[in-house]
């Protein structure tokens, strides 16, 4: 495995390295949820390659200066995937890895959903679904008004975008030509419960549940609303990187960009992949050992080369 850089400054990483960090983050999610006996797994795992690529190769952020006014902004609109964000923030150096053990516990900075008043590095509270893109619209408007060139990124779930408020934001972003705003849709094709699959829907079903947008061409919908649409495999780091570069560069027509990233819910853990019941679940001891076998192999390789020690203090 490629050794991780010790630089705080953002730099290009190769796809294999990013994939390894994502596996490590997935393992942190499993550990934290098992420890807390609460939390979500399917969603954090499906978005993990998108998130790791963003934080370790794209975002202009510095964990030692989380309030830098010129930093890129990131909003995890699908706030129930909070533990995934916390794992990435910890690996990035915003908080000690050990702190992940406080997830979901009283007085913790790591609440069940991200809390902007508690944890530096969180740019917006989220949790009640469908609200993050609107905050992103405000940040992007503010960037333009203040003549700042930071980019605003919002990660949404494909179940979450059933909320009507999302489409209010979609309209506003197009009307104001917010090319400095990018929405990433974690298109894992499953929501918490949804509708059961049936024969006529089998072509777009994931497992035994119907896709939340069954029969709808989401790319056409966003395009019709005036957005630039990029569709990628959300687990292919080369594709993710290309999409992010394109989004960052902006659009000649001033359109905001949406990246429809096709993912697998529960990605990386064979027990969980495409299984809707793993949306929110506490792994059994047997599940946990299985996850350890599948994911933990990467842990020491990554941690030994991480810029921060396990306690978050610079080595």
């Amino acid at each position, binding site marked *: 495995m490629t050794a991780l850089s010790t630089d705080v400054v953002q730099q290009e990483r190769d796809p294999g390295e990013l994939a390894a960090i994502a596996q490590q983050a997935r393992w942190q999610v499993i550990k934290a949820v098992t420890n807390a006996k609460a939390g979500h797994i399917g969603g954090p795992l499906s978005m993990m390659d998108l998130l790791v690529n963003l934080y370790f190769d794209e975002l202009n952020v510095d964990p030692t200066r989380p309030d830098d006014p010129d930093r890129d902004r990131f909003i995890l609109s699908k706030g129930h995937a909070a533990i995934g964000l916390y794992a990435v923030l910890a690996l990035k150096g915003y908080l000690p890895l050990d702190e992940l053990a406080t997830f979901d516990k009283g007085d913790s900075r790591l609440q069940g959903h991200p809390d902007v008043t508690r944890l530096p590095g969180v740019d917006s509270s989220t949790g009640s679904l469908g*609200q993050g893109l609107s905050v992103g*619209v*405000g940040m992007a408007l503010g960037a333009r008004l203040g003549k700042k060139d930071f980019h605003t990124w919002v990660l949404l779930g494909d179940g979450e975008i059933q909320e009507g408020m999302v489409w209010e934001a979609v*309209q506003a972003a197009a009307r104001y030509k917010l090319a400095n705003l990018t929405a990433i849709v974690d298109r894992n094709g499953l929501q918490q419960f949804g509708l059961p699959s049936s024969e006529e829907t089998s072509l777009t079903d994931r497992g035994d549940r119907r896709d939340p947008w069954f029969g709808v061409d989401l790319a056409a919908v966003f395009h019709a609303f005036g957005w630039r649409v990029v569709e990628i495999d959300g687990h292919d780091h080369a594709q993710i990187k290309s999409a992010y570069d394109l989004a960052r560069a902006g659009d000649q027509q001033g359109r905001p960009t949406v990246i429809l990233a096709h993912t697998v819910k529960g990605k990386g853990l064979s027990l969980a992949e495409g299984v809707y019941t793993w949306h929110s679940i506490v792994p059994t001891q047997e599940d946990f050992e299985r996850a350890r076998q599948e994911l933990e192999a990467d842990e020491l390789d990554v941690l030994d080369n991480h810029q921060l020690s396990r306690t978050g203090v610079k080595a």
Partner: protein
Amino acid sequence: MKAMRDVWGEKLVELGQSDPRTVVLDGDLANSTKVDKFAKAHPERFFQMGIAEQNLIGAAAGLASVGYVPWTSSFTVFFTHRAIDPVRMLVAQSHANVKIVGSYSGLLIGAVGKTHLDVQDLAIMRAMPDMTVLAPADGPELLAMMDWAQTYEGPVYLRIVRDAVPDLFGPDHTFTPGAVHRLRDGSDVALVSTGPQTGRVLAAADQLAAKRIEARVVHVGCLKPLDEDALRAELAGYDLVVTAEEHSVLGGLGGLVAEVLTATGPAPRIERIGVRDTWGESAGNDFMLTKHGLSAELVSRRVAGVLGSRVPA
């Protein structure tokens, strides 16, 4: 006498000039609420968010987080009902520096009916931790509250009315969070009011004086935070306290006074005048004030009636 919405619109223009962080988000009602004045004066800092109040609030939270002071403008009902979840999560829970301004509050908003009348906004916003809740009585108090809100770092809900109201405060009035104001003194009964209803309560006190009933009038323009000790001190020693508000009698000023007075021991009788757990309707101002017992004449008669019934025959 200037309409309160004009006072608000012109003050926004001034804040826009004095503080470049000032931005305004409109829900397609600028020519009703008079934030069109700001749109004309500072077009680059005026954001037309369309008929989409949830997104309006979310965008305001985003603008606040990158350093601006957003003032949001719509009718109260669309913020305190339609957009209440983003108000809750993105503004109050996030301690966002957003000033939510509901125009056309209370009962006197023209013939629009129960869909547009908001008689629960104070109850809803009072129940929201971290939210400052303001209901100015007149133009000078509104101006003072806006000056304060511009420099306060945190969420504020301000309800204002459409029409002109008489000035009760002087032009140099300044705002102190939580303060209560005694506008008239008298020993027979204490009247407590909020918003422009206070003007009618003062008129009611004049009518009571003609009947040899002397009323103390206390104005509570800031329902949250509240200096509870100060309010209790103002109302101490009275056997009868009467509250009056253009709002439901549940959870607004009447509820607040009842909570405060009963928190420390024996309390006086508290008569709450306002909308009695019902919806509004399309009607003119006089009809609404009469129907809900809020005209000066009806407030004074209610007070006199209660006091009269307490005097042994």
